[in-house]
């Protein structure tokens, strides 16, 4: 029957890959940390590795090193997975921080100062179990939507910060606006994103 809805064809069902809902990534990473299941790692790799590489290049790691840096980051995803706390961050956020730190370490040959994950180890039992289906992930989707609603001049300073690693002073020079304007745009953007994002927090 030509007009049957998709999926009605039982014989083809096996070949249909279930669509991967975005909230799966956080759950999947938490599950991988617990089970050390490599097939989960493969799925996570296929989703995140191209994004990580694109990010690493934008931030300024030279193309000849981008593969190597990406590989280190993706290895850290496996090795540091026990530090991932799904109650605090979506998979994309956690992997972003790994990618940022590793890229900066590489570019500056100096560790980007950070407060270690183990400074605030999750309170054992609660966080050890797989979290209630990806609240952080829902928030992450909401953040993505919120970023798209920023006025252009605010989105611009966010992009220059996150994708080019530019300081307030560098952005001010680049856009030929006072330092104070850069900071107030960043503040406005951050406030707006927090409001849009944090309603449920």
């Amino acid at each position, binding site marked *: 029957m030509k007009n049957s809805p998709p999926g009605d064809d039982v014989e083809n069902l096996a070949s249909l890959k279930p669509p991967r809902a975005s909230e799966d990534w956080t759950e999947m990473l938490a599950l991988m940390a617990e089970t050390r299941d490599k097939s989960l790692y493969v799925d996570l790799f296929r989703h995140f590795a191209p994004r990580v590489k694109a990010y690493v290049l934008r931030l300024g790691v030279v193309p000849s090193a981008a593969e190597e840096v990406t590989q280190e980051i993706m290895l850290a995803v496996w090795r540091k997975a026990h530090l991932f706390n799904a109650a605090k961050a979506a998979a994309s956020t956690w992997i972003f921080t790994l990618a940022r730190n590793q890229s*900066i370490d590489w570019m500056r040959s100096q560790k980007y100062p950070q407060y270690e994950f183990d400074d605030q180890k999750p309170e054992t039992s609660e966080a050890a179990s797989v979290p209630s289906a990806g609240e*952080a992930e829902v928030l992450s989707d909401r953040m993505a939507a919120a970023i798209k609603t920023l006025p252009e001049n605010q989105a611009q300073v966010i992009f220059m910060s996150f994708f080019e690693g530019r300081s307030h002073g560098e952005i001010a020079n680049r856009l030929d606006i006072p330092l104070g304007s850069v900071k107030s745009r960043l503040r406005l953007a951050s406030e707006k994103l927090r409001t849009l994002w944090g309603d449920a927090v």
Partner: protein
Amino acid sequence: MKINHHLDDATLVSYSAGALSQGMALVVASHLAICPECQRRNEQTDAIGGALLDDLVDDSAVDDKIDDGMLNDLLAKLDEEPEVTTAAPWPKTDIPRPLAEYVGANLERVEWKRIVPGVYFHELPFGNGGVSRLLRIAPGKTILPHSHEGNELTLILRGSFSDELGRFAAGDVADLDDQVEHQPLVDSSEDCICLVATDAPLRFTTWFGRLVQPITGF
């Protein structure tokens, strides 16, 4: 520890973005290590990065293709034992851990250089234009009035000072920009020790300050 002065949103965004100098990032990380409120805000600014990362696809401008070679290399490495990083129990200290990695866990063991009587500094190993140092200032002493070309971040580790903006005690961070001219005065009975970073040289506002700046750098 009751913290009254926190990081500016603009600073937290840049920290999450990886856009701060090493010295400024160290002040931020050190404050975050002791301030749950700013940690929560930092989780939010990190989530901006997460959302942007997740959106980075199908952009033909960058060569983000990954072949299965990398995946196969990685799969071969997954069973290797990673170097075990069992964090040693951290001694009780008033130095936040990110800072302790550079100066040790004991403020008493820091080596100080004198600028003028009652004012000492310890330089941190970041050579990137701005200032990054520990300052130790005796009670009743003041820093010469100055403003900034860029940003100035100060984390108070011990003691306290007051300036035009209020009173800053241990744990507080003063997050200032080029609109602010201030003259901090130490008002605690013990030395005030703080971690300071700027992303551009300071601008002293008195002829004397400008005169000694080449010597003090601060």
